[in-house]
Structures are given as C-alpha cells and as structure tokens.
C-alpha cells in the first residue's frame, strides 16, 4: 500500500486527530475494540510527516494525539505485570481511554451525518418570508377614564402619604448633567458659587463625584476658574467669560 499517495489526496479532509484515527481504522478495517496500536501509530505519524512536507501547519491537537499513541504503544510493549499484581490494575488496557473517546466521537459523527440528511430533506420544502404588514402597535382596548382616574388616585394618595419622608427616586447623575447644572447656576444666579451649592439634586455621593469631575472638566475647557481661600476651605467657582 502506498500510504503517501493516498494521504496527499485526503490531506486536508481531517478535522482533527480523532477524525484521522477513524479514517485509519475504517481504511484498515480494524476492530475498534482491538486496535493494533503499532500499525495505527505508524500510519498516523506518516500522515503527520506528509503534512509537514506540504508545509501544512499542524494543529497542536494532532501532535498531542501522536504523543498519546506513542505512549500507548510503549506501554503495550512493556512486559506483562507479574501474576501477583492486584487484579484491577492487571485488567486495564492502555488503549481503553482512546477507544472510549473514539466510540463517543463515532456516535456523533453518525449523528452529524443523520442531521445532514435531515437538512437535505427539509431543504426540499421551500418556505417564504413573513409577509410585511403595515406594522402598527394597536391601542390598548377597553380602557375608560375611570381607570385613569383610579390609577392616578392610587399613586397620588400613596405619594401624599409618603411625602413627609421626601421620597426621591435614585438617580444616576452624569458629569454632563453636572456641567450643565454648574453653568446654568453660574449664568442665571451669581457669578460666584461655592462647590457645595452645586450639589442640589440629591446631595448623594454620586452627585458629589459627578460634580467634582464636572468642575475639573469645566476648568480644562477654560469655562470656569476656581478659588480656594485656605486649605480645606470652601471652593468657589466663577464663570470665565
């Protein structure tokens, strides 16, 4: 058998080491449960060498499998353990793990072929695209003004009851928001503003952070200047126009 020629034709067709092994097993009509490791390893290595000759980049998976095969081969060449070895060790075939993987892989290769056939059959049925209808989201039905009133009354009453606590929704305050706030305040109210006075939304930590970044950004943009009369004292912002 001229292995080299046979491989050149099929060179790129193996998706991975398991696909290549399956091919070797099929080609040699080998019993998958009793793989002649020496023969298969030799053919496998020949294939890899052929790939090298054709400067095909060999995926690491192929090399890992080559090493595995060589390891199995060498373990099988070792003399049989003496009779007094515990039976559970005696019974382990070094090929077992590989065989299990091959059988598992073969199942899915067949399943893939089956799916391929099913897709082909399904491909005989031509479908069509959804018909474009003028899409208009319909108005809710069956609502009356009473529903609206009741909804409002419900929320208003609970609001009034809780109002004493000043219920404030958690608000994400952006630097952009604070830049607008500061400029608005400076323009509309005074030319001078203390930093604390800019915290007028929620006074939260996140607002303080946003405000501070906004001040830095406005300084960078040369829109405002700041003054601080003493260390840790109040920071005053003034419009630079």
């Amino acid at each position, binding site marked *: 058998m001229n292995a080299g020629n046979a491989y050149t034709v099929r060179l790129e067709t193996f998706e991975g080491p398991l696909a290549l092994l399956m091919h070797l097993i099929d080609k040699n009509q080998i019993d998958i449960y009793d793989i002649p490791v020496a023969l298969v390893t030799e053919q496998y290595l020949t294939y890899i060498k052929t790939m090298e000759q054709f400067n095909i980049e060999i995926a690491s998976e192929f090399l890992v499998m080559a090493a595995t095969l060589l390891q199995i081969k060498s373990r099988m060449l070792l003399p049989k353990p003496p009779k007094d070895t515990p039976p559970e060790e005696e019974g382990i075939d070094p090929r077992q793990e590989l065989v299990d993987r091959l059988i598992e892989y073969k199942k899915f290769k067949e399943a893939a072929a089956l799916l391929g056939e099913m897709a082909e059959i399904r491909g005989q049925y*031509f*479908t*069509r*695209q959804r*018909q474009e*209808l003028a*899409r208009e*989201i*319909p*108005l*809710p*039905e069956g*609502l*009356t*003004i009473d*529903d*609206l*009133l009741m*909804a*409002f*009354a*419900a*929320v*208003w*009453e*609970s*609001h*009034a009851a*809780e*109002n004493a606590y000043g*219920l*404030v*929704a*958690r*608000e994400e305050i952006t630097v952009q*928001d604070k830049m*607008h*706030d500061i400029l*608005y*305040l400076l323009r509309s109210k005074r030319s001078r503003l203390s930093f604390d006075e800019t915290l*007028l*939304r929620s006074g939260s930590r996140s607002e303080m952070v946003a405000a501070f970044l906004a001040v830095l950004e406005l300084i960078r943009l040369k829109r405002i200047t700041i003054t601080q009369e003493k260390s840790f004292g109040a920071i005053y912002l003034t419009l630079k126009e």
Partner: protein
Amino acid sequence: MFYRHLKGHIEALLFASGEPLALNQISDILEVPAEQLVLLLAEMKEDLADPMRGLTIVEVAGGYQLCTKPELAATLEKLDRPSDAKLSPASLETLAIIAFKQPITRQEIESIRGVKVDRVLGTLLERRLIREQGRKEAIGRPILYGTTEEFLKCFGLNSLKDLPELASFLHTGQPE
C-alpha cells in the same frame, strides 16, 4: 387544458418567490409558452375565488404575485399584534400622572411614583400614548412629556379639557 398539471408548479413558484414573478420568468422555468401561462393563471385566479381559499393572485409591477385576500386583512393584522395589547398597572399609573400633570419631566414622575420609569416611558412612547413636549427651563433642561391624540382615542376623550377636575376626585389636595 394541456398544461393544467402545471398549476401546482406555478403555485409553488409564486409562493416561494414572494416577489412578483414576470410571465417570462415563469415561462422560462417551466418551459411553457407565455400565452398558455396567461390562461393558466386566469384559471388559478378563479380557483382562488373559492371562499375556502385565503389567497389570491394579483398582477403587480409587471408580474404575478401570490398574496392574501384583501377581505382577510383584519384577521392577518392580529398576527402582528403584540401579545399584550393591555397596559400594565405600572404603565397606567405613569400615564395617569402624565395625563393629569402634563407637561411633566421624568424626574417629577419618578418622585411621585417612587420608582424609575425609564422602561415604562419607553413603552408609552412606543405606543404613542405620550410624546416629548419640549424641555423644561430648569437645570439639565429635562424633557417634558405630555399625552397624544392616541391617548384621547384610547380613553374616549374629545380633548384634554374632558379630563375631570382632579381635585374633586381626590381626598388629598395637590402637593406644591
């Protein structure tokens, strides 16, 4: 008619194409003279007139197109209807606040409802029950929301003036 057995082929072609098919396209594919096709298509149109059928063949844009019968439009519109045409309680509450307090900002709605309303506002905007009505002259120039004509239709109102006087329905007066 000699070519009558091709009706199934024509139906399938028109079905799968979606687009109108020109007479010569069908004629090329089926290798049937165009004049025969015209007769076949006329016959198929008659077959489709049967009330047990839901489709019809129309001549458009220089071709033949299979489409649904116009009288079934009402049924077909239901295909596109989002499953919940109803408003959620959250949407209704938000809508109520907007209706009675418009124009109103998101922040103001949130301070009344005590929860974020971004998503709800999105829903109401999408369903065109509310719309943006400019911006408030305040810090951050927040968007103001108000109701639409669709809103009026939806609640059977003639104009916003028909919204009842709130105060008379509510136990508590109007805050601030």
